[in-house]
Structures are given as structure tokens and as C-alpha cells.
């Protein structure tokens, strides 16, 4: 399993569009990908769960990746976070 955390810089936090982009990227991998914001972790392939985290600017969100393509998944997700959040 791999983990990674990221502090959100975007003023609006994880709003609908980046949440949608995250789901799109996450779904391209077979690994189990989870995201949390200080509490329990939710499935990064489900848009309502991600939006329900209410992650705002300054919040540090954690990711975990578990599966065959976990390394590639981590790389793709971290790239997405840096570019759009």
C-alpha cells in the first residue's frame, strides 16, 4: 500500500469539477484508492463521497493506494492534485 498527502491551495477547495476529475483519473486504475480529510477514508471513485469531505483550502487530505497499479495511480493522482488544486 502507498500513501500520500496533499495540502489544498485552491480557494474553493475540492469542488465539483476537481472532484469529477479525480474520479475520472481514479477509475482508470484497478487499485483501491481512498481519500480522507482528517476522518474516515472514502472511495476516490465515488464523487459524492469526495464532495462530502468538504475539503477546503489549507486542509491536508490523505490518499491511500492499494493494488497492482498503486504506484502509477499515486503518480497520476498527485499530478492531478498539484495541477488543479
Amino acid at each position: 500500500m502507498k500513501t500520500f498527502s496533499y495540502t489544498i491551495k485552491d480557494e474553493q477547495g475540492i469542488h465539483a469539477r476537481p472532484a469529477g476529475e479525480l474520479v475520472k483519473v481514479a477509475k482508470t486504475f484497478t487499485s483501491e484508492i481512498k481519500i480522507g480529510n482528517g476522518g474516515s477514508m472514502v472511495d476516490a471513485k465515488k464523487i459524492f463521497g469526495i464532495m462530502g469531505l468538504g475539503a477546503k483550502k489549507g486542509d491536508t487530505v490523505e490518499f491511500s493506494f492499494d493494488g497492482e497499479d498503486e504506484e502509477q495511480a499515486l503518480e497520476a493522482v498527485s499530478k492531478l492534485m498539484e495541477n488543479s488544486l
Partner: protein
Amino acid sequence: MQVYHGKSVFGGIAIGKLWVFSKKEHQVVRVKVQDCEKELVRYEQAKEEAIKQLQALYEKACKEVGEANAAIFEIHQMMLEDEDYTDSIKNIVTSQQVNLEYAIGVTADNFSTMFASMEDEYMKARAADVKDISERLLSILKGKSNGELKTDTPVIVLADDLAPSETVQMDKEKILSFVTVHGSVNSHTAILARTMSIPALVGTDLTLSEELNGQEAIVDGFSGTIYIQPDEKIREELERKKEEEEEKKKLLLTLKGKEDVTLDGQHVMLYANIGNTSDLAMVLKNDASGIGLFRSEFIYLESEDFPTENEQFQIYKSVAETMAGKRVIIRTLDIGADKKVDYFGLEPEENPALGYRAIRICLSQPDIFKTQLRAILRASVYGNIAVMYPMITSLEEVRRIKEIVEEVKKELSEQRIAFGEVLQGIMIETPAAVMMSEELAKEVDFFSIGTNDLTQYTLAIDRQNPKLDAFYDAHHPAVLRMIQMTVENAHKAGIWAGICGELGADLSLTKEFLKMGVDELSVSPGRVLPLRKVIRETDVTKA
């Protein structure tokens, strides 16, 4: 006659009948069912159909309002496919042995309550998305679509507010104008109206009622007014105004898509000046090849406090994206004691025109400057952005600015935030800058001559004072020589020089400017096509 006012998002006049858009929410009843499997099959079919509809809407919206604004339909698809949402619906059907419609209704309520209870205003508003997708499923199950625009003649659409999914479904041929009670000038409806080049009002002070349906109305997008059951006088006046507009449009339409080149083959970059994102539609409509002056002040003037980097980034990004690769020259903050903004805390001055303003504020308070530069550099990833600095008088200022830009770039790289390269130019609007133009040209990528200030500073005449009109000569040879000198020095250093002041649109000077070798003319959007006409009829080699 009833008269109401709103914020206009696009000029123009629409005359026609009102059509009131009202949302009808589905009522669902709980019914016990025996065959749960059948309900689940119906669900899969409805879901599949909903996703198909959303995909079609996405493609349609991409063409109409651009990918960024169409993304909402992709998100709605994801929401429909979200496992938590689908599991909830299936669970209710099988565990309670109830009809599918009821299960959707309950799930929609649960999920929208989750959003509505969140602290963040934005997330609260997302409850509407959940309702929207659930209503779509219910409509499909019922075999009826919601809020369909059924009319033979085009109408003025009157609504409380319109969701993207609602406007995209409407037949655009049937819409003369949008008038909404809520919504901002940046709302989806506003963007759509601009893209369609039809008059539209948002935040209008009227109360919606079904009785308005079918009533005669006139929307005046120039003054932000809607007249319901207009009297004869208003009707005649606005009909005449509408005809004049259409005549003008027809005449100039023949020049759209034509090159900006003189009879003897000299090319000119013909750009437009804008003071707000709401001017963008006019830029596109008048076919300018770029934006030669984007007055960024409006972002500051319309704010209650310093606009954040992200607020600015979003604005610059949307302008760059809208212009789709055409050049956008953003002039950094040009505020001073005459254009007052409370939160800047500027003190009153004896001579505001000669005072603490523009680049002088930016260099004294680099934090404000850096925020803007970061936003511009980040936005340049999304298009062809250039930046220019106002009120330059010396080489030292330019060198200091370039140092600050380098610092900003370094910070962005360290933070691993994407940014693009931008051309950097300066406004030539002080006699000092003209006299130093030979040296300044070696430091920057382009010049843009601001003739309004340059004339005022060269002639030492305050244009606000009517007593001085007799002394004022817009074509004063001193000013024209200043322009000539600037252009010559620009060319000597191999850079381009343009004019972005009012003089650039003065058709009696166009030939002279072309003779001087002016490379770019930037004028208000409405002046682009008349200027193109003159350029195309000019032969610089002939007297």
C-alpha cells in the same frame, strides 16, 4: 406599462412575447410492489437513458458555451453512476419492497440534505445537482421532459434562475432574450447570452407569475430595462433603435473575417480594449484579432477587499480561454487617487494625475503586485497572454519590475505551480518614457502608447476642465511626434509598437499612423470594424 431593471450582460434590443419558465418538481407516491426485480430493471434502463441524455447535453454545451462550462454535465453523469447513490436506490427498492420512483425521491432527499447541511456555501448549493439528476430519472420514468420550450415564435425567456441543464435543452432559435430574477453577470445564463449575442438581464427586480406568460415585452440590453406591455412611445423609440442596430450590423458584417491589411500590403494587428469580462462577447462579435488592452482595474474596483490570487486567476483564465489562442494583453493595476478604492487606503492628493498611482503603487507595495503577477502567469498556461505595465517613466522601474517577475516565477516553480511564459511590454504614456524609448525598447518585448495620458502630460492640459477646450488639440504635432519617435525607437530595437488610446480609433489619423509604421491598433470593440474598413481602403504609398 410596467418597467423593471436588471444588470445587463449583453447590449441589444429584443421585442416579443414573454415565456415564463417554471420548474415543476415531481410528486412521488410510495407504492408497495411484488416484483422488485422489475423495478431494478426499470432503474437500469432509466439510468442508461439519463447518462445518454447527459452525454448529448455535454456535447451540445461544449459547442455552445465551451468545455469548462459543459463540465457540469460530465459531473452529473458521475453522480448518476456513484455507487453510494445507486446502492441507496436499489436498497430501498429491495428492502422496503417499494416502487422505484419512491426510492429515487428518498435517496435524492437524503443526499441533498447531506450537501445542504455542509458549512460551505458552494457545497450547500450542490444539493441542487442531486435534485437535478434525480428529477431527470423521474422525468424519464414518467416519459416526459421538464420545462420544455414549446412555442412556434421566438420568445423572451423569463425565469427565476436557469440551471445549465435547463438552458442547454432549450431550442436556441426560439430565444430572443433571457431575463432572470436571480443570477450574476458571470452565471451560466449570462455566458450563454453573450455567446449567442442576445440581450439578457440578470438580477431583475420583478416578481415572476404565470400571468406574465404571453404578454408583450421589450428588453433593452443597453440600459438594462424590461418594459412589459410597453406603451406606443417606448415601442416606437426602441423599434427604431433596433433597426439602426441591425443596419449597422449588416453593413459591418461584410468586413468580418477579412484581413487587416492596407491596399499596398502593410499588415496591422487590430485589437480591442476591454474593461470587463462582459465586453468579451463584443470583442468576438466585432472580430478583433486580440485584446490589446485589458484594463484589470475593474477586478479591484468591483471588490470590497483586495481580490485574491485565485479570483484573478479565474478571470484571466476565462478571458484567455475565450480568446482561444488570440493574444490578450493584460495591463496591470492602474488605480490612483482619481479612481478610488477604499481598501487601498489612498490619501487625497493635490494632483492625482501626477500622484501615487499605477506602477508606483505596485512598486511601493509589491505584495499587491505579486498577487496579480502570479495570477497572470498561472493563467497564461491557458492561452496567449502578454502583460504590460502602466505609467512607466524610467529604466530603473522596468528593471525592478522584471526582477519582481523573476522572483514570482521562482516562487511558483518552487511551489510546483504551473505557469507559462508571457511577453512583457510597457505603456508609453509619459513624455519621459518617450524620451527614454530607445533604451526602454531594449528591456521589453513591446510598447503600447496610451494617447490619453500622453496627450494630457505633453500638453499640460487637464481634459476635465471645459475652460481649456480652446487650447486643446487632439492632433497636436507634439503628440504625433512623440508617437513617431516611440515607433522608430521600438523598431530600432526590433520590437513592436501599438496604440491603445482613443487616438488609435481616430479614423482621420489612421493613414498617418500606418505611415509611421505603427504595428498594432487597439480600440473599443465597436470601433474595430469601422477601423478595419479604413485600413483596407488605405494605400500608404500614395499621398
